[in-house]
């Protein structure tokens, strides 16, 4: 029996993919909760210190949305899916990367999703993807019906808040290098807010040079649309990885990001909206309750590691005892794993032929195509390299006679000079592989390699 059926347009697929990619940075598994008026995807990380929820409005986000429900629970249906599998369905198809001139040839045009759940039958999450080129693909994913875990945020407690443009926030985060763990946000004085990163890893001796770049940014308060923090110099510390996952997604939507929090060691809520989608995150802030001022200093000095981030569940139970709480959201508890990049990888310079001429005197401002100067990569773990390596047809164990090894070529030459080759096959190879060391300049000039 089909209990939920919805259709996504191309934009809808993109928006859902961005959301799933963001959720994937928190957890491997994603929880889905369907109601008549909305579809909610949530994830809780393994240490239960970060929680993400995307709520898609059924009447605005979807081209079609029909919720049937099941007999046992008419109100809502929930299940848990393996996010990577789900994400891979919506991933940009090969051949429609950003740099493909025939962009859109195999881009997703439409996507129909149906969820079937019936006793005694295999329950399935069925995705039908129609591409622009007329091809339709159908996927069936298994899911697990499991009761959601609730994480709550008490807004009455969170008396500190700020809002800022997602683009500005993204620009700020771009200044932070890799390898850092925590981000400390605090107001310095009446006019500036400080973003500082730090790590708890202690380095000594040779390791000192391996320390990550330490970045701190002083931002004028005007940069925020609102900034309402009751206590000056209140250090609020969150995980950079989680915060970055949020700011990256928020920048896609280009909307305004708002944060609400109370004290260190209490959760921080970050919210922003897109077209028909509401995004909410809870991040556990690091630190000791009641000693907000000194806490960050202590961690940075590295005297002793700060107490690990408390779990959101603890917050949830506390919040549950409070009467006026926002509607509970279900979440699954899952493991976390690094996620593969969603963006199409930058085209590798060596995959394309060298340009015929190099326009040194170009009138146009040179583009920053710095990637072409990256050293050649030959690691076998790269997929495209693997494809290159698989160019061989000879399945036999015999070593490839035309191997481009300098030593073997030279050896062949000397062998030829000193006497007849070991066998006839070898002789033929020599005539094939022997080349004049190079060409005359006059011969090479026609290839445009030398410009004078």
């Amino acid at each position: 029996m089909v209990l939920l059926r919805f259709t996504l347009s191309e934009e809808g697929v993109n928006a859902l993919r961005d959301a799933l990619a963001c959720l994937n940075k928190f957890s491997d598994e994603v929880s889905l909760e369907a109601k008549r008026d909305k579809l909610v995807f949530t994830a809780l990380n393994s240490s239960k210190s970060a929680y993400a929820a995307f709520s898609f409005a059924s009447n605005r986000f979807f081209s079609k949305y029909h919720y049937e429900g099941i007999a046992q629970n008419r109100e809502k249906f929930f299940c848990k899916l393996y996010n990577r599998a789900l994400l891979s369905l919506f991933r940009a198809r090969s051949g429609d990367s950003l740099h493909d001139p025939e962009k859109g040839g195999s881009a997703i045009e439409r996507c129909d999703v149906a969820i079937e759940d019936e006793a005694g039958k295999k329950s399935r999450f069925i995705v039908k993807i129609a591409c622009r080129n007329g091809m339709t693909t159908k996927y069936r994913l298994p899911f697990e019906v499991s009761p959601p875990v609730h994480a709550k945020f008490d807004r009455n407690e969170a008396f500190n808040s700020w809002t800022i443009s997602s683009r500005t926030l993204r620009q700020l985060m771009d200044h932070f290098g890799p390898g850092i763990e925590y981000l400390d946000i605090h107001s310095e004085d009446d006019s500036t807010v400080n973003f500082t990163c730090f790590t708890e890893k202690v380095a000594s001796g040779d390791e000192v040079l391996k320390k990550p770049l330490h970045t701190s940014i002083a931002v004028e308060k005007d940069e925020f649309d609102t900034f309402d923090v009751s206590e000056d110099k209140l250090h609020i510390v969150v995980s950079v990885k989680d915060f970055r996952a949020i700011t990256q997604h928020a920048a896609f939507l280009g909307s305004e990001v708002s944060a609400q929090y109370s004290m260190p060691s209490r959760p921080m809520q970050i919210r922003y909206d897109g077209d028909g989608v509401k995004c909410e995150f809870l991040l556990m802030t690091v630190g000791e309750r009641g000693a907000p001022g000194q806490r960050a200093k202590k961690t940075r000095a590295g005297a002793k590691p700060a107490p690990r981030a408390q779990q959101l569940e603890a917050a949830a139970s506390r919040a549950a005892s409070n009467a006026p709480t926002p509607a509970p959201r279900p979440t699954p508890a899952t493991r976390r794993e690094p996620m593969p990049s969603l963006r199409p990888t930058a085209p590798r310079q060596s995959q394309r032929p060298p340009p015929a001429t190099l326009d040194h005197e170009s009138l146009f401002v040179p583009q920053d195509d710095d990637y072409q100067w990256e050293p050649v990569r030959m690691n076998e773990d790269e997929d495209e390299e693997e494809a290159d390596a698989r160019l061989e047809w000879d399945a036999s164990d015999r070593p490839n006679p035309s191997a481009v090894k300098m030593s073997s070529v030279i050896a062949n030459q000397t062998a030829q000079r000193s006497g007849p080759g070991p066998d006839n096959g070898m002789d033929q190879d020599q005539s094939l592989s022997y080349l004049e060391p190079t060409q005359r300049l006059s011969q090479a000039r026609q290839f445009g390699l030398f410009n004078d």
Partner: protein
Amino acid sequence: MRFKTQLKNIRTFSKLVAALSSLEKIAWLRLDDEHVRFTVIPDTGSQVWALLPMEFIFDNVQLQSAEAQNTINLELPLVPLQRALKSALNATSASLRLTKKDGIPILSMTIQTSTVAQGNQGGGQGSYSRFSRGDNGPGHFAGGFGEGDDDDGVYNIEPLETHLHREREKIITQDIPVRVLHPDNVEMIMQPKVREPDVHIQLPPLLQLKAISDRFTKLAAASSRASSSATATAAASNPKLELSANMHGSLPALPLEEHPSTFFREAGPDKWASVRVDGKDWSKVLSVGRLEGRVIACFADEHALILYVYVPQYDDVQGEDCVVTYYVSSYNV
């Protein structure tokens, strides 16, 4: 020990650091009253000595050291430096200073940048810059300016461009961990001595050379993987490229009778000087092409290849060039 300077030419500086860091992640930085020198010596592969006049990347330098000739020697990780310079690319000003934090010496880069300035950089460019920032903010029409008269009565509605939003300043501090080196530890390190080269040529555009070299390297790697599945990782079995040059190119001959290049020139166009370089290492070396300097390659036949990369000071024609020297060794057959 004091070191404090304003940064200039940040884009070129950043490209130099990128080129160096493709060979090795840690560099030796030597500062004195006149020069900045970056030295990179990888365990295997080519070494680089980059000698820059102080005013090439620095301005208003304050340098003070107790050591002989007023030198400061630092060991410096290149990746964080590159990252910090990236932050400084669009800065209104940037400065660098040697200091200590929590007892650890750092090079602290202070970068001033303003948000709005990204939109209307260089107000002197007038209407050009106003209309060329199509991706900056919604509401700008994308079709360009003056597309002809289409009298359809439909007009694009544009936001009023005011400067009510005053430029907001951000101050970014990027702290790069460094180690201060004792002069005794570094004065042993000498620039390699190589015999007089047999052939010297100006290299063709490095981008093309790199594309061809990388292609050969990949081909060689692929075919050697195909033929010998095991032990392909050892450095000795990496693909090698053979480069040959003769003295009949475009460079003027040195008027020296005893010089080996004279011998190679007189021997005619069939007299080649050849070196065999490691394909992977060579690709890293060619990464210096991003600096867009003139490159002179000196071939010591069957021995070594030395590249001199001359990067001019674009804002000061009279100024001394920056010379980046690569020592590439040749492998035996």
